[in-house]
Each structure stands twice: as C-alpha cells, then as structure tokens.
C-alpha cells in the first residue's frame, strides 16, 4: 500500500470560520463514526464525513478544503439526523463548500461546482430553472462538463419525444424579483466583508 504524507496547515481561525458559517459546534463531535456508516456516498469520498469533522476540529484547512467529499456530499442529511451529538453535519459540508469557493480553492470535483454555478446563473436570468438551458450552460463549463453531459446524449431522443425537455424558456413575472434578490445578496455580502463581521 502506498501512503501519502500530508503536511497540513493548521489553523484555529479556520475552525472558527466553519463554526460561524455553519452555526454548528463542530467540537461536540466525539468521532463515533455514525455519519460515515450511514452516508450513502462515503464509499466515493476521499475522506468520509467523520474524518472531515475531525480535520475541521484540528483546523486542517488545506486538507479539508481540497477533499472530494465536500463536493460529493448531496446534502441528503442522513448524517445530520443520526448524529448523536446533534450536529448538522450536512450543513458543515455546505459551509466547507462555500468557504472553499470564497478562498479560491480549486474544487476537487470540478463538474459538481460547475453544475451549481450553471443552475444559479439560469435562475438569476429567468427566475426559474429552465432545464434545457441548464444542460447547455453546464456543458459549456469545461471539457469535463461537456464529456459528462455527452454521456447522457442517448437520453435526448426519448426526452424530446416525451416532452421532458421544454424548448421555450418559461416566462416568469417574478423573474425581476429574483434578479434583485441576487443583486441585494451580493451587496450585503460586500458590506459585511468590507465592514468586518457584524
């Protein structure tokens, strides 16, 4: 077996940032492993949820922000509802994704991040998710995204003949409200970053 030596940067600031973003007390975790045992996707992660929690406790910032786990997690919340210490682990995973984007880490699962970005772009523009445009926009996100998208091309004739893909984008009277919500959220974020923490 080959071993990889990881020399992580340790930061207490990181632990506090995760706790602040997630509103969860990560230090309550006593490493029972119930989260990893129940996680349907743990098998596909480089660090199971239990190890992610431990790494956060230790403040191993680079280690945890570059793992695949935070992107493979789909927030099914199995871990959160089973945690005997009542930590919302899925929320911690979410916060780690947000921090990793903010800090400019390259996501270990690029396509997952591209998908979420494409999704938000479409709803900011249209007010609703227009699946056809979402797939197109995702596919343009990069070589990997195009490849994974093409993997589903066999479904296209069926989807078209069964009317599963809308051709005309939805016309949504609330679309402008959504644009304003996105703009306002950005404005508030900037205010908080420049003004320091509240």
């Amino acid at each position: 077996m080959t071993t990889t030596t990881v020399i992580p940067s340790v930061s207490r600031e990181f632990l506090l940032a995760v706790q602040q973003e997630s509103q969860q007390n990560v230090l309550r975790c006593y490493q029972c492993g119930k989260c990893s045992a129940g996680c349907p996707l743990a098998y596909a992660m480089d660090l199971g949820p239990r190890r992610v929690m431990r790494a956060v406790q230790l403040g191993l910032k680079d280690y945890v922000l570059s793992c695949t786990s935070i992107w493979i997690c789909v927030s099914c919340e199995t871990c959160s509802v089973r945690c005997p210490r009542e930590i919302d682990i899925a929320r911690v995973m979410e916060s780690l994704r947000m921090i990793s984007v903010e800090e400019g880490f390259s996501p270990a699962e690029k396509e997952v991040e591209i998908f979420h970005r494409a999704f938000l772009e479409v709803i900011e523009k249209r007010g609703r998710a227009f699946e056809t445009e979402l797939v197109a926009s995702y596919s343009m996100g990069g070589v990997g995204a195009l490849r994974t998208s093409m993997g589903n091309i066999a479904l296209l004739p069926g989807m078209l003949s069964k009317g599963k893909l809308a051709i005309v984008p939805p016309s949504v009277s609330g679309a402008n409200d959504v644009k304003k919500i996105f703009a306002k959220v950005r404005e508030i974020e900037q205010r908080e970053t420049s003004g320091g923490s509240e």
Partner: protein
Amino acid sequence: MPGAYAYYPGCTQESSAKEYGESTKLVCEELGIELHEIDGWTCCGASSAHTTNHLLSVALPARDLQVAEEMGMPVAVICAMCYSRLKYASHELNDPKTLALVNEVIEKDFQNTTQVLHLLEILDKERIPVRKPLKRLKVVCYYGCILARPKKVTHFDDEENPQIMDRLLGKLDAVSIDWGFKTECCGASLTLSRRDLVRDLSHRVLEAARRAGADCIVVACPMCHSNLDMQQAGIAEQHGSKADIPIIYFTQLVGLSLGLNPGRMMFDRHFVDPQPLLREKGVI
C-alpha cells in the same frame, strides 16, 4: 374537508415532471381541493443555492412564501426538494434577525406566517372516494432523502420510517410492502456531474425494491423519479440488471383510483412504461 391552497408547482412541472403536476391538478380538482398558483412563483434555489450562499438559499423561497402570505393561504408543494427548501426557509426565518435581513433582501414586510404543506400531508387528511381500487398492486413507497428530513425542520413524519405515503396507498387498495430503502438517497443532483454515482445509488434502490417483491416504486419527488426512471436503462447497463421497474408518482395512482382517465395520467411520458404492468393487474 377540502381546503384552498397557494400552489407552488416547482420548475420541473414545466418540463421533466409534467405528469406529476398534471396528475396533481386533476386529483385535486376531483377532490375539491382548490389550488391557486402563486402569482409569478420563482425557483426555490434547489440544492445549488444552499450549496453556494446561505442568505440566498433563504431569500429565494422567502419571496414565494411572502406572496403566499398575501394570498392568506397555506402553501401546497409537490416537489420534495422545493418542500425542503421552503420548510428550511420558514424554519430559519423564525429567527428575527434573519427575518429582518431577508426582508431587506426581498424588499417586503414578510411576517413568516405561511404554513407549508406537502400534498401527501394534505391528502392524509382527506377522504379519498376510491372508485377503481388498485387491486392489491404491490408497491414500495420511496420517500427519498429530504421529504422527511430533518424532522425538526419539516415536521413531516418519522425520519427513518415514514408511513404517510404507505397509508395513502393502503387506502387505494394497493399493498405497500415494508422495506429498508424508504429514505435512502438516489444520488440527487449529481445526475449530470457524477452520473456514475447516481447510477450506483439508484441501482441499490431498484435492487432493494426487487428484493422486496414490488411491482413498482411509488415516488413523491421529481428528482428521484428522473434518476430512477430516466437513468434505469443506463443503470441496467452499468450494473448488469434489467430496466423493468416502473416508477410512478403517487398522484398518478390516486388519479387512477378516483376513476380518472388513465390517459390523462401521462404514463407514456415515462421511460420505463408502467402501462403493461397496470394492464396486467387490471388497474387500467
């Protein structure tokens, strides 16, 4: 007693899950449940918003909840993802500071009084006049991951072993088989980015249904439906199984049991056609 609701259809009703939306409308009409579509309703943000920005993930559903508050009716939702996001927003907005911040974002004076209900919760309290019983059709009810979780947010049903859909199917004279995969995850929004994982997880769900001896899987979530139905041929390819388990929305089966025209339930939109099974069982 049938009531009146502010209806939040969800984006998939306009395309991939039209059969869910249409069967919902027909069933509610038949039962006298009034659905008033929320004017200009917009996307709840789904998994992408809460993965990216917490404030955004609360503000997007709050916009719809606010319109419903003005309508003065509880919200009826059919998509499990929308339901989860709307419920989460309500829960978070119980905090006055969050409510004030979100009101600043949506530029409204929302009071967070809107009640959010899944159609399953609404039907649970209704008397269903079954005209065409489902003749002991063997089903497993698949709730998916987020309908019942977390209970402190959704107050929906038991987190590990929900019963509400089983109870409904029982009333329609279907046999709802107990199984261990009611709330397991199908792979959710990884369909495009990591289809291999979706196919692994959905394969496990399909296999569990086979082991339980079910004729079909009944669902309440468009994403579960699309992963289990549309991807089923690909799953069969990846795992050497067969694409032979119909995935049916509970509303379609309620519609049949109410004696509505099977054609209007749009079974022909499914990739794994449920009609041969339903004909064999004498249900259509």
